[in-house]
């Protein structure tokens, strides 16, 4: 049972009743800030809270949550759909949107009551904000201070291009770029450029090769008599050189096209660059969705509980907040109609609560599984470390405890297309914990989610066909229909034909080939 506040404590309440106004927001913000910074030790960007209407929220949805965005029909499509779902009552609006920028912008909706605003401030302005500022992926890949300026630049650039080259031409490029967006990120830091030393050695090697193979007779010899083996070798060598010069193999398709596509005009390259930057900006979010939401949910839960303990919010407000909280972290079971994968809020929140529990009230099992954190008495410090240094995949791999596996009653199913039925191969028992944890972690690994595609070669001597390869893991091939459409988009950027080979990752044998001819110009 929730302990009730004494009636006398009413005077301390930050707000009463559902109405919100700017003063109350400010008071609540200060109280939350005190708990978040001083008790939980969070470290956040300066906050900016913006009040918007539900219509503006729909607008924000449509432009993938960014406050500024260039114009494109696909955002209109998203808007049309969201609007219909919302108007027909099939789907509520999100309570907040938060933007990874400095200052960190959180949108709150005017329709929400004060308890809800409290929840949102704790969730977005502190939970998400802390995560954005501290997680290593965001630190490494995104520039929180520059993003808004960059988006403004992008929007203006695109609209200038539209004026100059026509909406259709711009749309054409953006369509193609959007299709490749998920393959427009650098997953790793760039390979260093060849240094002078290596450059010289390469040159040396080339000369030696030339000298060794020089024979005056080739100057006069007839073609049929040539040493074919040497020719092939030289050709291979040359192609290797070209590949190296072009920086192949390359998995960032948009980057490669921006730098190397022969037919693109400068403004088209710039458009590719813009989409690539935006994709890169979102890449950490895709990899940390569960942790990010878990972190924000955990923070708002802890903060709200503390506000209530300190007698700063009323029972009614707490209940209203908990009502929203519980519906957010609801996890339907697999045979439930509402089941739609594992709810990132539910798993993230449960794992973080579990870590807190292990730090303060460890069981014998926890001591065995997590000797380094069990009973260390510093739950927030432990969590801050986890928030800073893990992404979804590694977080699950490191911290998913047997207790949680039991609580969720997780089980693993193996599905081999060659066999009639699927097979349960691990459940929540002693033998299954590690297997389930490994498998679940793999689901959060983006590298396994997005197909592994690289640009392998360009036939510069021939028809300039661009050769891509898809590494097929466990026999999972690409979706036929959408791949063909993407390749067509790709030809419009590259300007020549495209060939995509699906290669088995272990045997390197080609399983399937997709081709697209260049669009007639």
């Amino acid at each position, binding site marked *: 049972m929730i302990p009730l506040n004494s009636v006398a404590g009413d005077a301390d309440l930050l707000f009463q009743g559902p109405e919100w106004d700017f003063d109350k927001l400010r008071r609540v913000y200060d109280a939350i800030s005190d708990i978040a910074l001083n008790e939980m030790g969070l470290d956040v960007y300066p906050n900016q809270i913006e009040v918007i209407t539900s219509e503006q929220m729909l607008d924000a949805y449509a432009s993938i949550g960014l406050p500024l965005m260039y114009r494109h029909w696909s955002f209109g499509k998203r808007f049309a759909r969201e609007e219909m779902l919302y108007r027909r009552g099939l789907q509520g609006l999100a309570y907040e949107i938060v933007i990874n920028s400095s200052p960190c912008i959180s949108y709150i909706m005017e329709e929400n009551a004060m308890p809800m605003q409290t929840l949102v401030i704790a969730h977005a302005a502190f939970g998400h904000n802390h995560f954005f500022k501290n997680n290593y992926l965001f630190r490494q890949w995104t520039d929180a201070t520059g993003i808004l300026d960059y988006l403004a630049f992008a929007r203006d650039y695109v609209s200038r291009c539209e004026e100059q080259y026509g909406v259709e031409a711009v749309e054409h490029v953006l369509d193609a770029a959007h299709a490749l967006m998920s393959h427009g990120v650098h997953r790793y830091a760039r390979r260093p450029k060849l240094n002078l030393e290596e450059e010289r050695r390469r040159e040396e090697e080339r000369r030696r090769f030339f000298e060794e193979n020089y024979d005056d007779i080739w100057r006069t010899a007839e073609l049929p008599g040539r040493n074919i083996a040497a020719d092939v070798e030289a050709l291979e060598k040359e192609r290797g050189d070209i590949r190296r010069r072009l920086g192949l193999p390359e998995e960032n398709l948009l980057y490669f096209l921006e730098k190397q596509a022969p037919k693109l005009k400068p403004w088209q390259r710039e458009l590719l660059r813009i989409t690539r930057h935006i994709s890169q900006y979102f890449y950490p979010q895709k990899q940390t969705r569960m942790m990010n939401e878990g972190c924000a949910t955990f923070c708002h839960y802890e903060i709200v509980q503390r506000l209530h303990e300190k007698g700063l919010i009323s029972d*009614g407000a707490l209940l209203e907040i908990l009502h929203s909280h519980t519906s957010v972290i609801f996890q339907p079971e697999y045979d439930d109609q509402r089941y739609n994968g594992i709810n990132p809020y539910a798993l993230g929140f449960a794992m973080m609560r579990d870590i807190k529990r292990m730090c303060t009230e460890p069981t014998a099992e926890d001591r065995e599984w997590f000797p380094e954190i069990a009973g260390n008495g510093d739950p927030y410090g432990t969590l801050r470390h986890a928030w800073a240094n893990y992404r979804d995949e590694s977080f699950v791999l490191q911290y998913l405890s047997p207790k949680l596996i039991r609580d969720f009653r997780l*089980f693993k199913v193996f599905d081999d297309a060659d066999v009639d039925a699927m097979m349960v191969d691990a459940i929540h028992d002693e033998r299954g914990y590690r297997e389930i944890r490994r498998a679940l972690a793999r*689901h959060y690994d983006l590298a396994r*989610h997005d197909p592994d595609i690289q640009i392998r070669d360009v036939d510069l001597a021939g028809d300039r066909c661009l050769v891509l390869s898809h590494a097929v893991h*466990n026999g999972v091939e*690409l979706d036929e229909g959408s791949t063909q459409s993407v390749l067509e988009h790709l030809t419009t950027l590259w300007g020549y034909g495209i060939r995509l080979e699906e290669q088995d990752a272990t045997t390197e044998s080609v399983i399937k080939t997709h081709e697209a001819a260049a669009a007639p110009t």
Partner: protein
Amino acid sequence: MNIIDRRPNPKGKSLTNRQRFIDRARGEVREALADALKRRKLGDGASGEKVSIPTKGIQEPVLRPASRGGKRDYVVPGNKKFIVGDRIERPQGGGGSGRGNASPDDGGEQDAFEFMLSKEEFLDLFFEDLELPDLVKTRLRESEASQLSRAGYSVSGTPSTLNVVRTMRNSLARRISLHRPRPEEIEAIELQKQTALDADDAEGAAQADLDLEAAQRRARRVAYIDPVDVRYNRYERVPKPNTQAVMFCLMDVSGSMTEAMKDLAKRFFLLLHVFLERRYKKVNVVFIRHTSNAQEVDEETFFHSRETGGTIVSTALEEMLKVARERYSPDTWNIYAAQASDGDNYTEDSDRCSQLLGVEILPMTQYFAYIEVGAEATLRHGFPSPATDLWRTYAQVAQQHTNFAMRRVADPTQIFPVFHELFAKHRAEG
């Protein structure tokens, strides 16, 4: 920390994008709209239209793994009965327990994309087909008076808009979760105290007293209805036109009227209805069909059932008069009529028609439009078709009355000019 009020910022930031989306899908939308129009009833008026278009053309393809094939594993919650080694039937259609996946949105491609066209977008597309001149479009969009209409709930409002059901539901949930003692529970404790007192059990009575006090204290603290429970009905202003009109649809349904002709007629009726709907608060539609006699029918029968028999137009006019006298007095209703026919009439009936129209009907109607459909066959010979009986009769009526218009229509593109004429006259008058 900054708090910024962005509410005054311009809304509709997505409108350009939305418009681009509709432009892009124009072909598909038009097709879907044509379909929807066939289903659409006249009574539906000019509300928005839900359209469902194939995803082709508005696809956003990405490179993604196929949803089937290969070796995969899933981790899913909620195990109830499975142990290691159990075999599970593969769920059909790719969904169900199989998708224990972190990203739910990588499921199958949507086959159709559904969204709502707003009223304006609908009218734009609808009139585009008929090449509505801009002049008339602006007239259609003229502003109207507004009225309140229900729009969900809010946490603030006046006592008169209190929504008791919602409020009590919240209150009940809160009382249960905070363990507010119910009156019966307090009564039970009182009874307990009484029994204890009766039995001279001092200890029991003291305990009951304590319980009672605790319960009462709790009941005092947890309000029966707390301000957070209270919900009000919310109202929004919705634009509304301000008077009422009735529209009579008259149509010849004898065997000579083909489906194509009826479709032309329907389009015309629909257009007129949309127009009236925009100008009047309430538009009633009366359907009168006739062969050699006339009757009032519902919309379904009007457009879709077939009749055989001769053609006596005056019966329809009489029926219209009868209905108008019974239910639609010209004092309180604006009366519009549209008649569609292929022009056949029983020759002796013509005089009766012009008599009825000139003396009784036209004086009380705002407007009477006659369209003669399906004149193609006669036009094919290269000269204007010989006028039909009805046409000749009506031509005389038209000379004497300004609120009567007549036109021939052979295909959908010609419908609009007729419609436009109707507007043009009204502009000239008023």
